[in-house]
């Protein structure tokens, strides 16, 4: 098929692959000899088989194109070269033949000459040798100068006698034969030559050319057979005129004469056609990838080389294109690219991650460092402070006392700061655990205000207003709530120079019952109404008071020690209902500029550097408040106007413990109260300006001996009782939680039962006028004005006693006056030794057992004041043992698996029955876990098992001392 060359751009190389005999040695005149531009080279080419994929008419046109002509010229040149070659070869052959002939003639002549010579010299008579005549005649003309070696040789072979007739005869015959053979050879050569020439003549140039093309086509097909390419030519209308497609999806008939659009549809066709048109228009070949998605062959990618075809006159008459399916390659390429991108992303991520990890680590380390340092500083600082407090109780002159006061307040400040830092890092590290206790919101508000009023150095009015719908008791982490309130109030006081500061507490729209309080992980303790005794309540609230009055120095430990006994952890009362309490702390202070609001809750941020200079502080307080509120599942917001005051509001979910029947009397809505002096509405407090500094600040012991509590009361007799209770609580429960008869009695006045009657009077409408020192001194002198003297003394008595005791304990706790019997349950010898030594130093008697089982036996035998229990022990662990002991305390009989042995029963029957009796009265031995803080021992588990608290191992003197102080009953 002669058309293939059109689509073969690398034709210059191709011929070399073709067999050399394509152009044959034919030197007769040939049409193409004269072929030049303008002649149709293919005019005579015959196409024996018509390939359906070609429009031959078009081929003719194509041949007319410049390329076609040059192609033809190339063919001609090639052919000419071949012909010249053949001519040369033929000439050479003829030359050879001529030489042969010459030789033969020479020989012939020689023979003749010889003969002639012989005739002349030896025979007188000239004898005709007819046989040689002919030859001779011809040969004779030729010059023969030399004799032939061959002849001489032959001469020797003649047997006959030399110079005899027979000799000559024979010789003549021999020569004749040679001549004949030679002639014959010549003849045959000539024949052969002629034959050859005849053969050659049978091929016309056209046939020759067709054959050549056919062979080329054959080779092309051979090469292209397995090539996944499409070769095509399209005319100016982009109709197919030729196509080669190794894997045709369409018959060629369907393609020729049609456009792409007519054959295919779908994605990519349009684009390809545009490019083809572009190529035709610009005349510049191009190579591109096209992505097709056609119904015919699906999604495929082709790389296509498109080149324009020009006619002789330079017009574009169509395009050729070669397309190759590179779908797989593209897929692979895309996959590679994808992988590379992913790798890059991965790498970037990794770097980012490692960077942030690094940063996090750094931050954590820094925080840890800060926390550790704070902790390290705190211990000696509390030592300094407590010493100073003790020093304050000694005889000092006025100046010394004042100095000491400064020292204490500065120390308190540092302590506060350190506690803040610790709190913050605790919250941030997630280590902050909320303790939930039942508390009275009214009391909390009142106490916070009281505390603030006590340390107030300005002419400010403090007011508190609690909504009627606020439950009497709710459950929550009162310590934290108090901390938040105290913080906000002290902030408010700090930035308010005149006017008032106040707290509004009310219930937000009640959340639907059963609504889970998100984010709150409280160990909700249940005080089911029946089991809660007034004493318990008081002890709980006592502790709260204690914590508050002791100030911040106890916040840290509150986490560990703030768990009152007689609480069952892990039980949930399904009937509990949650309320959202909203608390607003407002002031009429300097306010906060709007631009500073966003920074307000950031750590170490204050509204401005100016403020920081002027008012001091660390800028940690609000950050802690926010984090604490959020930890409890609430939110903290601020509304403020510069020079007009600020209002900090937080909402908190709290669980209602004791249901209350509230008659929502609209007349006594808290908002309606405006007249402070007649604030007899429930839950409204007012503290008028006073100037006694540090009245109830953390330095409790400083004013221990000053009768402040009682003096205060004298102004407002009805409040005296309650107030005194407050203070006595503060002192008594600082060291001692035992149900002290006096304090319990006074506390119970706070219980719900007595409350109602108190309310009817004026109990909750408290006006504490804290006046200048002079005033209260004078009033203390005239304390009998409105209140009967004995009453005061009655209250003072127990206060003083307790104070002394606590002081006493604080200074040195190793007095054996309250020597307790302690059971140490521990399996590790080293631990035993250390703990024993500590306990002995504290002056307690201890029994030591090595596992839970032994502990149970020990408890069966004897009564202990406290049990220190290792958690992880062989045979029976501390949790198990605690469960058994608690179950015995509740039921009065031991579980069968740990029943005391018979003989012990008998021998100790009296005692055990005694023990049981005591326990049934509510005696519950405190069990303190000693946890190793490892994965297998969690504090929650300990508490769930019925333990009262835990100290972490390794036990240190401080921990064990504090723990014993809390849980050992005083005697």
């Amino acid at each position: 098929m002669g058309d293939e060359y059109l689509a073969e751009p690398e034709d210059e190389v191709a011929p070399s692959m073709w067999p050399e005999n394509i152009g044959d040695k034919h030197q007769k005149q040939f049409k193409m000899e004269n072929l030049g531009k303008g002649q149709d080279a293919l005019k005579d080419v015959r196409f024996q088989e018509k390939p359906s994929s070609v429009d031959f008419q078009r081929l003719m046109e194509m041949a007319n194109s410049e390329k076609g002509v040059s192609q033809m010229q190339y063919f001609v040149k090639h052919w000419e070269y071949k012909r010249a070659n053949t001519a040369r070869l033929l000439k050479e052959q003829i030359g050879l033949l001529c030489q042969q002939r010459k030789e033969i003639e020479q020989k012939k002549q020689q023979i003749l000459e010889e003969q002639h010579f012989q005739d002349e010299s030896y025979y007188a008579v000239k004898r005709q040798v007819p046989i040689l005549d002919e030859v001779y005649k011809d040969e004779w003309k030729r010059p023969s100068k030399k004799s032939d070696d061959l002849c001489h040789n032959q001469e020797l072979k003649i047997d006959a006698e030399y110079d005899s007739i027979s000799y000559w005869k024979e010789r003549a015959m021999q020569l004749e034969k040679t001549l004949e053979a030679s002639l014959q050879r010549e003849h045959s050569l000539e024949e052969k030559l002629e034959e050859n020439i005849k053969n050659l003549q049978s091929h016309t140039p056209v046939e020759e050319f067709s054959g050549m093309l056919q062979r080329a086509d054959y080779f092309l097909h051979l090469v292209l057979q397995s090539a996944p390419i499409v070769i095509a030519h399209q005319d100016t209308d982009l109709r197919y005129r030729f196509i080669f497609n190794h894997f045709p999806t369409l018959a060629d008939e369907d393609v020729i004469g049609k456009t792409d659009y007519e054959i295919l549809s779908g994605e990519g066709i349009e684009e390809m056609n545009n490019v083809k048109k572009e190529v035709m228009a610009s005349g510049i070949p191009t190579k591109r990838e096209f992505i097709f998605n056609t119904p015919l062959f699906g999604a495929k990618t082709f790389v296509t080389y498109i080149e324009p075809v020009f006619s002789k006159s330079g017009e574009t008459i169509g395009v050729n294109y070669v397309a190759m399916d590179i779908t797989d390659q593209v897929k692979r390429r895309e996959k590679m690219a994808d992988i590379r991108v992913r790798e890059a992303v991965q790498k970037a991520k990794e770097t980012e991650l490692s960077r942030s990890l690094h940063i996090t680590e750094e931050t954590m380390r820094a925080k840890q460092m800060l926390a550790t340092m704070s902790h390290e500083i705190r211990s000696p600082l509390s030592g300094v402070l407590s010493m100073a407090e003790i020093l304050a109780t000694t005889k000092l002159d006025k100046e010394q006392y004042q100095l000491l006061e400064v020292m204490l307040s500065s120390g308190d400040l540092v302590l506060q700061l350190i506690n803040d830092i610790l709190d913050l890092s605790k919250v941030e590290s997630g280590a902050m655990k909320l303790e939930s206790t039942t508390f009275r919101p009214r009391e909390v508000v009142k106490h916070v205000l009281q505390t603030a009023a006590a340390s107030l150095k300005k002419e400010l009015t403090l007011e508190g207003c609690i909504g009627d719908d606020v439950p009497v008791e709710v459950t929550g982490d009162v310590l934290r709530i108090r901390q938040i309130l105290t913080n906000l109030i002290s902030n408010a006081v700090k930035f308010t120079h005149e006017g008032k500061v106040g707290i509004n507490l009310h219930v937000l729209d009640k959340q639907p019952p059963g609504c889970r309080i998100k984010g709150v992980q409280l160990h909700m303790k249940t005080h089911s109404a029946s089991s809660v005794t007034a004493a318990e309540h008081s002890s709980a609230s006592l502790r709260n008071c204690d914590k508050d009055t002791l100030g911040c120095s106890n916040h840290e430990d509150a986490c560990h020690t703030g768990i009152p006994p007689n609480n069952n952890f892990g039980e949930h009362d399904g009937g509990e209902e949650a309320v959202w309490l909203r608390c607003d702390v407002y002031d009429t202070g300097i306010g906060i500029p709007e631009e500073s609001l966003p920074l307000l809750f950031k750590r170490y941020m204050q509204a401005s550097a100016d403020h920081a200079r002027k008012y001091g502080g660390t800028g940690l307080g609000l950050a802690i408040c926010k984090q604490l509120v959020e930890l409890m599942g609430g939110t903290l917001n601020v509304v403020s106007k510069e020079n007009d005051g600020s209002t900090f509001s937080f909402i908190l979910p709290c669980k209602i413990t004791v249901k209350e029947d509230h008659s929502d009397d609209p007349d006594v809505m808290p908002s309606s109260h405006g007249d402070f002096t007649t604030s007899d509405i429930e839950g409204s407090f007012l503290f008028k300006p006073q100037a006694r500094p540090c009245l109830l600040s953390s330095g409790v012991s400083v004013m221990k001996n000053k009768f402040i509590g009682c003096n205060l009361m004298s102004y407002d007799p009805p409040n005296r009782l309650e107030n005194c209770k407050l203070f006595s609580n503060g002192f008594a429960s600082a060291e001692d939680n035992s149900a002290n008869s006096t304090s319990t009695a006074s506390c119970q006045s706070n219980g719900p039962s007595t409350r109602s009657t108190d309310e009817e009077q004026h109990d909750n409408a408290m006006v504490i006028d804290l006046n200048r020192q002079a005033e209260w001194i004078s009033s203390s002198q005239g304390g009998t004005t409105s209140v009967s003297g004995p009453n005061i003394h009655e209250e003072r008595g127990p206060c003083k006693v307790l104070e002394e005791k606590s002081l006493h304990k604080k200074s040195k706790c190793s007095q054996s006056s309250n020597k307790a019997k302690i059971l140490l349950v521990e399996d590790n010898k080293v631990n035993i030794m250390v703990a024993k030594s500590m306990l002995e130093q504290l002056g307690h008697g201890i029994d030591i057992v090595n596992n839970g089982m032994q502990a149970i036996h020990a408890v069966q035998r004897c009564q202990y004041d406290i049990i220190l229990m290792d958690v992880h022990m062989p045979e029976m662990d501390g949790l198990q043992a605690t469960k058994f002991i608690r179950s015995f305390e509740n039921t009065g009989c031991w579980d069968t698996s740990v029943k005391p042995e018979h003989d012990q029963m008998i021998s100790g029957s009296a005692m055990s029955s005694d023990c049981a009796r005591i326990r049934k009265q509510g005696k519950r031995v405190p069990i303190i876990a000693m946890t190793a803080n490892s994965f297998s021992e969690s504090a929650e588990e300990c508490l769930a098992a019925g333990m009262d608290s835990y100290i972490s191992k390794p036990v240190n003197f401080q921990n064990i001392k504090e723990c014993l102080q809390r849980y050992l009953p005083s005697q």
Partner: protein
Amino acid sequence: MAAALTSQLHALVNNMFATGLLDDQFQQLQMLQDFSAPDFVSEVVTLFCDDGERIIGELARELDKPNVDFDRVDSFAHQLKGSSASVGAQKVKNTCIQFREFCQQRSRDGCLKTLDLVRTEFYDLRNKFQAMLQLEQQIQACYPKH
């Protein structure tokens, strides 16, 4: 003589604190030592050393068995951890924590590796303790002469 020994002792103990061999808990022990229990630290330390040596032996034996009982190994590690925590042997304690993690993972290789570490640290500590006790004895021996 006694003063030199005392300063040597102080240097040794300070070094032990500085290198993290010991932590605050050891100070607790020192605090507990008074006239009523003059040899308290020595007793505890000796007990710790003996106990520790025993436990390390047990651990090695347990880990040498074809079927390691990791619970048993863990309980030994726990004991050592408790002891070391009580005397303030910080490094040993921390390694014990690591050791217990490997126990949880049931990684014998990890355990063995950590055991080597524990052993090294423990014997290092024990040597120092022994040096410390020796110094203390020498110091005590000095005093009657004065």
